[in-house]
């Protein structure tokens, strides 16, 4: 059984990656945070007594299931929103809206550190993350599990519920697609 310390270490090591994976999938920070929090709580509540070496695979499955659930809910919600917006087309424009009040200031801590190289890297990361977000969901899952989580092909196949051959195909296609997209922007890693 994973001790509380082992679980804490595992969660602290995976939380940022999990958040990023969720963001790549849902493209919404708040939704991604909710997804990660739900996944963490579910892991602790339901599988907190499992051995520590089983936690990564279980957590990844929970996270992917939560992401899928989010898409399902969004689909249902969009259906109702479309229906009601078609019924009432009256859109009130808020004249008091001031865009300056809603702009998010950049992180103060990194402004004075930004050199040209750091800026270039930040832009590169942003482009790469955007391209990963554009990948089909299965390719995205396989690519991130295989290379970021460093799961074996067998574990990735287990987590994705598909064959090992499918995992290899998804990973290869994802890598090729990313390389092509970056190359089109004049970037090579």
């Amino acid at each position, binding site marked *: 059984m994973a001790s509380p310390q082992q679980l804490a270490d595992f969660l602290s090591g995976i939380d940022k990656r999990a958040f990023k994976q969720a963001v790549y999938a849902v493209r919404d920070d708040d939704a991604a945070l909710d997804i990660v929090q739900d996944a963490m709580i579910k892991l602790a509540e339901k599988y907190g007594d499992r051995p520590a070496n089983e936690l990564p695979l279980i957590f990844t499955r929970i996270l992917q299931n939560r992401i899928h659930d989010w898409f399902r809910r969004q689909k249902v919600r969009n259906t109702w929103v479309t229906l009601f917006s078609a019924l009432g087309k009256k859109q009130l424009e808020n004249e008091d809206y001031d865009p300056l009040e809603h702009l998010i200031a950049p992180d103060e801590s990194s402004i004075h550190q930004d050199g040209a190289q750091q800026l270039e890297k930040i832009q590169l990361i942003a482009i790469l*993350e955007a391209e990963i977000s554009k990948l089909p969901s299965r390719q995205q899952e396989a690519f991130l599990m295989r290379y970021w989580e460093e799961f074996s092909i067998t574990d990735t196949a287990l987590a994705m519920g598909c064959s090992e051959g499918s995992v290899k195909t998804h990973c290869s296609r994802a890598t090729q697609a990313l390389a092509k997209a970056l190359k089109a922007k004049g970037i090579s*890693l």
Partner: protein
Amino acid sequence: MNRPTAPTQSSRPTQSGGQSQTAGLTPTEEAQFAQSAMALLQQGAQQLVPKIRHRLDEARLHALRAQKTPTPFFWQRNFAPAFGGQTGSQLSGDAKHGPIFNMLMWLAASAAVIFGLMAITDWQQESRLQDLAVLDAAILTDDVPPNAYADSGFLAFLKAHRDLSHELSPDSLEPAAANAASPS
């Protein structure tokens, strides 16, 4: 494993045709590209804004508070003081085994106790039948009147000398039987 169906592709961006996306990378180049990409993603993950980091920390603490802990069995809760705070798996040194193993161990112990009780009951019943058999044999073979066997003292005498009963002649039993049969 059960897996929910993947979200419909209409809700996610898609790219058509796997082969048309290829950038002509060899497997080695693919691995190198993936490694470089992951290094960048890892750096990106470390540059989260403080607000998100704070929320992730809160989520982690919330999850840790909700961690599932194995529920001790009733005997572990109730009998722990008797073992100086150690119970069940701790005493037997099998803490690495799960609750199922503990349950099986306790079931095996319970079954052993039940079978032991059944064996003792069976043995007692068999012993009682043997006593009755001795009594019946004595009634059938002896000249002692059957009324004598209604006396508890005579029965005790027979039990005490069961192995010698065949050596006892009817003559030796006569006085005892007569005493037992006569109303005092």
